[in-house]
């Protein structure tokens, strides 16, 4: 019996070591929001079927995704941090950046709204939260959402870092929403994650529809010149797939069955200036 157990263990290990193979995989570094919304579960298998590439989706914050790109540890990026992306492209880490889609950020908080931000502009809302010292939960993780939030504070002329009412979770969006709900604080979230969590949160949307709150996703191919190990062909194939008309149609319909409205607006081929970036 012992011999059989040992044999079984060896077989298990051998099969675990030989569990992959085939075409060179494409490493997609992206944000947690694209994964947590379920969009990639729809698109990635479609791409794998069409192209024959195997995709390894690494869902991290936009900041970390771009760091992976800089180091040549990813083949293609799908990120939403326009200012940081601009620098990334200027530093020649990326060879091409294309618009994929957008949705929007919303400011959420308790229905009692102690800082009275409901219906104001994003900038005004940030100012009011600071003045009334309403509890604000920040991602604090260098993600695209965090970058957007910092931009909004800057626009409102507020430096929140050392304030008592400003708390950084260092967690993903879903968990930050949970913390905000428990502590009855305000937070900035992308709409898709908020909708996915809404049912148990008790947080309501207070500010939305402001142009400053657009959440724009772009796909970036990495410059192969910087690193010979990058799978440029695979990265390019994925980027092409993301902006292809058929994929864009899938994106435009995603979420309708579950939330009654699409979670993302497809943007491929649009002029970035039309979205204000």
């Amino acid at each position: 019996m012992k011999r059989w157990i040992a044999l079984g263990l060896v077989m298990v290990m051998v099969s675990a070591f030989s569990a992959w193979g085939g075409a060179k995989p494409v490493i997609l570094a992206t944000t947690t929001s694209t994964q947590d919304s379920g969009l990639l579960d729809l698109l990635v298998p479609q791409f794998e079927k069409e192209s024959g590439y195997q995709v390894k989706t690494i869902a991290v914050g936009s900041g970390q995704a771009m760091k992976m790109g800089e180091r040549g540890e990813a083949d293609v990026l799908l990120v939403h941090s326009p200012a940081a992306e601009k620098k990334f492209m200027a530093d020649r880490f990326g060879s091409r950046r294309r618009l994929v889609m957008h949705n929007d950020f919303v400011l959420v908080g308790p229905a009692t709204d102690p800082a009275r931000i409901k219906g104001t502009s994003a900038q005004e809302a940030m100012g009011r939260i600071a003045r009334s010292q309403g509890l604000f939960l920040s991602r604090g993780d260098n993600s695209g959402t965090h970058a957007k939030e910092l931009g909004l504070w800057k626009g409102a002329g507020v430096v929140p870092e050392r304030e008592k009412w400003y708390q950084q979770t260092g967690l993903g969006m879903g968990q930050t929403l949970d913390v905000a709900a428990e502590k009855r604080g305000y937070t900035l979230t992308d709409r898709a994650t908020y909708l996915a969590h809404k049912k148990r949160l008790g947080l309501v949307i207070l500010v939305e529809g402001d142009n400053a709150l657009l959440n724009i996703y772009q796909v970036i191919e990495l410059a192969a010149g910087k690193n010979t190990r990058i799978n440029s062909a695979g990265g390019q194939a994925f980027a092409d797939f993301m902006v292809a008309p058929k994929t864009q149609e899938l994106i435009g319909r995603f979420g309708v069955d579950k939330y009654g409205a699409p979670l993302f607006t497809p943007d491929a081929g649009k002029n970035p200036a039309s979205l204000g970036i």
Partner: protein
Amino acid sequence: MEVLYDGIIQAFSLMISLDAEVLAVTLLSLKVSCGATLVSLILGLPIGTLLALARFPGRRLVVSMVNTGMGLPPVVVGLFVTIFLWRNGPLGFLEILYTPSAMIVAQAVIAMPIVAGITMASIQNLPATMKLQVLALGATRVQMVWILVREARLPLLAAVMAGFGGVISEVGASIMVGGNIKGQTRVLTTATVMETGKGNFDVAIALSIILLMLAFGVNYLLTVIQQRERPR
């Protein structure tokens, strides 16, 4: 509490219906953690035995390092293994980052000190005169080591259990070196983290219950083997 109730219901419905994705995730957890435990045994048993029987300068330092290693934080292991396995890292040519092999490597690093430490303790716990007796009866050194290891085999199974228990339940290293990729490196713990992030608490609870049952099942099997013969 309603969430907990839903989760338990969900766990059993997922298990009874043999949900393909949950099954794949469960099997991969088992594969990776069994593989890692095996690697850690291959490395940890000899190291533990050596530390128990040999006397050499610096032994105390090594023993302290092994004992510290028994509580090695998985995220720390994950971070260093990731850096080594990066494409541009020292072991990048292997191209195993974000594969089950990388997870086996990381988990083996976590389990190895646990196995070595418990091996050392159980061999040292044998009567001190035994080594002398065995040698006096004319055994060679190799035979002596073999007899001592055989004599300590029951406590050594505890080393297997502790090693396996340590890695099947760990998430920090697995998520870093594996990447929680659907269908490739998603195991029970990383799937639980992700489902919690998605707000699917019922699925997360279901996965946790499956994980607990899996750990219990493997430990039960080993306990049965261990208890079959009473220690003398």
